[in-house]
């Protein structure tokens, strides 16, 4: 293990279960919500993903990650290719390193028209695979900027997103394989709702040996009623009918929330049986109490 390994990297190397939470930076300039989140998750998870303007404008993910780190958490900075070109993306990584943040999750991000940014221009200069490769090689080829290697850049602990529900499967496999070849050491799946589909996907992961090349964590996202209501028909396709029916029958918001937490726990319980799965990433759209309840009751709390 390199002396520069991040805490997450060490955890990946240990072979033990990895538990992540996700924090969305506040929609304002007040750091207090981050300090509160840091207090809540301290000692409960191995690292915390920090989303990058996911579907609304929020505080800079790098600033938020830095604040969380100062409070003792191990941040994973999400970096999307939607809003920045290769110049800004490399600069972001160098800034992150200077702030002691070297876990970077590279993703193309939600298309801006699906959030509150309909009129915004997107960038998409490079894609997530190219971003991984850029970050992996910053020290040697300057991250494809036409420069020589950048002094003292990296190494980073790189991650990416996996999409078990997406099509066409043959190309999704190629893309996932490229992500690991480009340098991803951990993969977090999109939220899992369709367990059978996920298990089918997992069999293919194992037969391709992808779980041996990167630590794969299942995304767990208790479906809040507002999220469910606002998910378009396309997003709802990922939610199997019996699950949707189970939730839709509940009119009381409290009962809905309880059921969503139960479903998340059932999902963790069932997926824990899969050979080679390395852990879970719990994200509850800012409902930290729900996330913490899932973490506590799942028995996965950080050791």
């Amino acid at each position, binding site marked *: 293990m390199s002396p520069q390994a991040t805490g997450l990297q060490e955890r990946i190397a240990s072979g033990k279960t990895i538990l992540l939470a996700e924090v969305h930076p506040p929609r304002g300039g007040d750091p207090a919500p981050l300090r509160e989140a840091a207090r809540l998750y301290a000692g409960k998870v191995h690292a915390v993903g920090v989303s990058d303007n996911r579907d609304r404008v929020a505080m800079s993910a790098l600033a938020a990650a830095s604040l969380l780190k100062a409070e003792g958490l191990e941040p994973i900075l999400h970096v999307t290719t939607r809003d920045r070109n290769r110049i800004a993306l490399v600069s972001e990584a160098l800034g992150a390193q200077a702030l002691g943040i070297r876990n970077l999750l590279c993703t*193309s991000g939600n298309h801006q028209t699906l959030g509150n940014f309909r009129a915004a221009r997107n960038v998409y200069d490079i894609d997530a695979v190219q971003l991984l490769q850029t970050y992996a090689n910053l020290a040697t080829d300057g991250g494809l900027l036409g420069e020589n290697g950048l002094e003292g850049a990296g190494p980073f602990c790189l991650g990416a997103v996996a999409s078990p*529900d*997406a099509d066409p499967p043959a*190309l999704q496999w*190629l893309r996932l394989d490229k992500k690991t070849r480009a340098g991803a050491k951990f993969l977090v799946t999109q939220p899992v709702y369709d367990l059978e589909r996920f298990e089918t996907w997992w069999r293919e992961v194992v037969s391709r040996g992808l779980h041996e090349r990167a630590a794969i964590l299942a995304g767990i996202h208790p479906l809040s009623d507002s999220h469910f209501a606002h998910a378009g028909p396309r*997003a709802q396709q990922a939610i199997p009918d019996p699950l949707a029916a189970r939730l839709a029958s509940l009119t009381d918001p409290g009962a809905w929330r309880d059921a969503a937490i139960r479903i998340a726990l059932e999902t963790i319980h069932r997926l824990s049986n899969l050979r080679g799965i390395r852990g879970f990433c719990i994200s509850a759209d800012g409902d930290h109490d729900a996330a913490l309840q899932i973490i506590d009751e799942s028995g996965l709390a950080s050791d």
Partner: protein
Amino acid sequence: MIVADRKKIPEIRDMIKNHRRVLLVGCGTCVTVCLAGGEREAGIIGSALRMALRLQNRGDVVVDECTIERQCEDAFIDLLAPRVSDYDAICSLGCGAGVQALAERFPKMPLYPGLNTQFMGILESQGVWTEKCSGCGNCRLGEFAGICPITRCAKRLFNGPCGGSRDGKCEVHPDLGCGWQLIYDRAVNLGILGRFERIVPPHDWSTGLDGAPRKVVREDQCIAGLCSRT
């Protein structure tokens, strides 16, 4: 071809209503084919504008129509020149290139666009046109089974589909086909799926608009010493 769409009549009316005599100029090329700004549309838009102006008590504004074969070429614009001095504004029903060609040719004439120029595309079915080309200046269709990932993928991904592709559709719009599904379908037909195992390096955007507005110069077609118009 270049595909355009008509602006709403009130928007055009409000652009021209403070002029006295307006010449509405159709174009006989792309926008005729896509039924947006040809001779027929110029007539319809002209009538609608006259009505809309009368309803706002601006019936005194004269709107006449004429259509030239190609607004993007001086040789055809020249045919318009004798008429232009009778007007104090032009509303072009050409694409953005046409509007600007007229603006360059008539430096003192106010110019207004009557169309929203959309894209380079094709007629998909009767009344439906779809975008196919972004004019990036560095065509890579040969690498991607004849389907352009820059134009047909909402995220311009070069290394495969994102997580928003499901049942052949893009999550950005329910009737938008996923560009990578289309690439996949053709790659399977052509037996070249293995080609997509390679990590495609970052694209060079400098040949496109990111490299600043472009110019194509064909030395072999230029008259000696007159290669550049500027």
